[in-house]
């Protein structure tokens, strides 16, 4: 009873069936890529690991509140013919002036994307599919493979990614307009597996907006992995807008490496999907790095929304800021999990993690776990988490000024949700986000 040898894992029939299915899909993909392709060995290694580990269950601490049974029931298809309706796709693009790129059902569409000829020199942009055509092309996306494959969805991604995006900015290149990527789903029960790599040279600056949406029948399984690599003094701000239909599945893992004096700012806005899980892994391995991570989540009905961060400070003078706000209505379940880890060498670290949650119904549930792991003594680290309902005083105050109860509740809830947007520096982007958020959320507030 004291032996520590791990017994063979046993999987539920549901999980086993899903594992068998994804294995067969990976095998098909490897066959299509042709024998002897360098990527085959890479995919096979991920597959072997996946077959050993399987899908997490609620017994895994990191998945305690994120049950996957609904995800496992559907076997998401990897082929299908997209229904491209240009007008509809144009309509869902964010109303932001930028370089627009479009993915349809997990594949890059050159026709629907803007002509990139006008981009300044020093910007390279390539689709993942093109990169994969090269013998060793997949390697640009695999810098964090050990970390990526800690997670079942990371393994699935390694086994099955077939497209994505590679963006590289040479030193000191600055784009005047944001790059706006729309991942559009048009097929039901379709799996979209993408992998991205964003690489900023010294002092380069990029603003990236990513949007996950669907048109009519779309309610697929989005599984993305993104590697972001900022050199010294590079600066990047990122917005991820996730508003998939209520039956969708969304899993996104980001691995962010920051070098000296880099600045990174990310906002995740989660509104859709039956199960959504967004995770940042930030490594601050240089002096005077500033990072900022924010979440805005609004979940209703039976949605499960999971947002998590890992922030590693390994060198002196790093500053990290986090604000995660969740509003939960109906029977929704919210999960926040954050970890700030400060290494012994990371003196003078200034880390702050804040999580605030608003529960709008008796059946909603919030599970928060803000964590600190500190090995350096001269640091300023704090975290806070608070959950509660709308204060009756606030509503009374607004009603006293002539608002109806419903208006008052809407106003308070929206104001609560929008706070993290204040740190979006670009006014045009912030305005778009505020309007879009208000339009998306207001119908469900009463």
């Amino acid at each position, binding site marked *: *009873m004291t032996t520590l040898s791990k017994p063979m894992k046993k999987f539920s029939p549901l999980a086993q069936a899903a594992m068998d299915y994804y294995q067969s899909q990976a095998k098909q993909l490897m066959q299509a890529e042709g024998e002897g392709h360098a990527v085959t060995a890479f995919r096979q290694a991920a597959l072997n690991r996946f077959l050993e580990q399987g899908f997490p269950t609620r017994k895994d601490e990191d998945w305690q509140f994120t049950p996957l049974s609904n995800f496992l029931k559907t076997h998401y298809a990897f082929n299908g013919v997209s229904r491209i309706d240009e007008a509809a796709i144009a309509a869902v693009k964010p109303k932001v002036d930028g370089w627009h790129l479009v993915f349809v059902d997990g594949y890059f569409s050159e026709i629907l994307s803007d002509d990139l000829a006008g981009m300044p020199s020093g910007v390279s942009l390539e689709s993942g599919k093109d990169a994969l055509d090269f013998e060793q092309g997949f390697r640009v996306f695999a810098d964090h493979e050990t970390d990526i494959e800690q997670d079942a969805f990371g393994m699935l991604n390694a086994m099955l990614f077939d497209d994505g995006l590679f963006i590289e900015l040479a030193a000191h290149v600055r784009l005047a307009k944001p790059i706006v990527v729309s991942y559009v789903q048009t097929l039901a029960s379709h799996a979209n597996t993408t992998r991205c790599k964003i690489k900023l040279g010294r002092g380069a600056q990029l603003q990236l907006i990513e949007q996950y949406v669907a048109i009519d029948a779309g309610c697929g399984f989005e599984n993305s992995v993104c590697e972001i690599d900022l050199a010294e003094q590079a600066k990047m701000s990122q917005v991820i807008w996730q508003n998939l239909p209520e039956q969708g599945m969304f899993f996104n893992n980001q691995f962010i490496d920051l070098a000296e004096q880099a600045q990174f700012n990310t906002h995740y806005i989660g509104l859709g999907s039956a199960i959504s899980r967004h995770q940042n892994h930030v490594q601050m391995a240089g002096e005077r790095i500033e990072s900022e991570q924010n979440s805005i989540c609004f979940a209703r009905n039976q949605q499960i929304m999971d947002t998590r961060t890992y922030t590693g400070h390994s060198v002196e003078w790093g500053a990290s800021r986090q604000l995660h706000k969740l509003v939960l209505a109906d029977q929704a379940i919210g999960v926040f999990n954050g970890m700030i880890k400060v290494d012994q060498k990371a003196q003078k670290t200034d880390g702050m993690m804040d999580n605030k949650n608003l*529960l709008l119904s008796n059946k909603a549930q*919030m*599970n*928060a776990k803000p*964590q600190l792991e500190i090995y350096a003594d001269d640091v300023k680290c704090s975290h806070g988490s608070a*959950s509660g*309902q709308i204060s009756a005083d606030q509503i009374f105050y607004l009603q006293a000024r002539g608002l109806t109860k419903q208006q008052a509740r809407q106003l308070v809830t929206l104001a609560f949700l929008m706070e993290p947007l204040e740190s979006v520096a670009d006014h045009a982007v912030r305005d778009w986000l505020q309007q879009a958020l208000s339009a998306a959320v207001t119908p469900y507030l009463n």
Partner: protein
Amino acid sequence: MQTTQYEEINDILAKNQHYKEGFHTQTLVETFAKGLNEDVVKAISAKKNEPQWMLDFRLKAFRHWQTMPEPHWAKAEYEPIDYQDYSYYSAPECGSCATDGQAESGSAVDPEVAKAFAALGVPIDDSDANIAVDAIFDSVSVSTTKRDQLEKLGIIFCSFSEAVQDHPELVQRYLGSVVPYHDNFFAALNSAVASDGTFVFIPEGVRCPIDLSTYFRINEAKTGQFERTILIAEKGSYISYIEGCSAPIRDTYQLHAAVVEVIVHEDAEVKYSTVQNWYPGDEDCQGGILNFVTKRGVCEGRNAKLSWTQAETGSAITWKYPSCILKGDNSIGEFYSVALTNRRQQADTGTKMIHIGKNTRSTIISKGLSAGKSDNTYRGLVKILPGAEGARNFTQCDSMLIGNQCGAHTFPYIEVQNPTAQVEHEATTSRIGEDQLFYCQQRGISEQDAISMIVNGFCKEVFKELPLEFAQEAEELLAISLEGSVG
């Protein structure tokens, strides 16, 4: 520049050549051979002359324990424990007669054991001390004082073994009701081989006039202590209970796996204070006590109140989460903790507050101090169940790092299933600043006094919850620990 400052502090910390409770008592003892199997469980039960139901409980727990894996999720690194390498029963020969013939318990105490407790400052004779003491030496309770005085009020204060004999109906009703035998690995082990412990019963409406206290002493080498404490506060009663502990210096790890069950009925209040000062081991914490404790209380009725206060300075490894199940409406749970780790000590401690009833309130104040190369972790759960209308929780976890080779960690779990609940959690990390020390020294306060003053200020919120003499003891203990003589 920083290193030099810490060299000084660490020098002071390193002058830790003696753990003053580290002496060893030589007396005739009866110790079971090492090893654990069903026969040992039966032998322990037979030794204590236990009724069949108690033996059945032990065997059920033992069989379940054998199927469980040893938990390693805590932030503490240790080799898997060889449970066959411990002895599961040890008693001073004379002490065992004390439990049989309790009438003359005072005189029957082994003089060596009596000396040991005298040296520890534990009043085991019915002296004028304004406190009633149950003294436990290895596996048995050797003396319980002030029993007659308490009996007049209807209070039962005796060793667990006696309670099994004299109050079987109460023990049967409450044993395992808060911490079931299958609850966790160490609780199952404890249920199987429970040595002794304290049994307290406060009848309806009685306010216990004096503090009740238990002092645990592990003496024999390579023995485990598995005490089981049950505390029942009937409707409208009040009790303040204190426990303390220590062990001699040994070069092998000793095991301590206790279970404490507290039942608080309507309008009753229980204050449970612990000063834990088990032997922490040598420089590298080799040979210290492995302290795996399950403490849990349930606020059964309306307006019940349970308050845990702990000062943790000892043990090589601490794994302890005193918890409150707030079942009754308006019930209150409190947790005040100071945990200090030095050298290579590892403490993973915190609390669980489970809010079930309406308008239940809980407060958690946790102060963690890490020095040397130690790791100090707060791990806590606040859970608000759907029925807990208007529940309220406030949590504050402050960590202080002394030196740059230690770690301070905070792992809070917050689960809210009711929107009317208000849950707040805050955590901060700080250190003793060079400037603070300089300021004090400039005014003629020695560096050591300055450290101890700053630390005491940091811990004040918790110490004010301890009974007076105890708070003093805890403060002294902290000062000594920081000097390094205890750890």
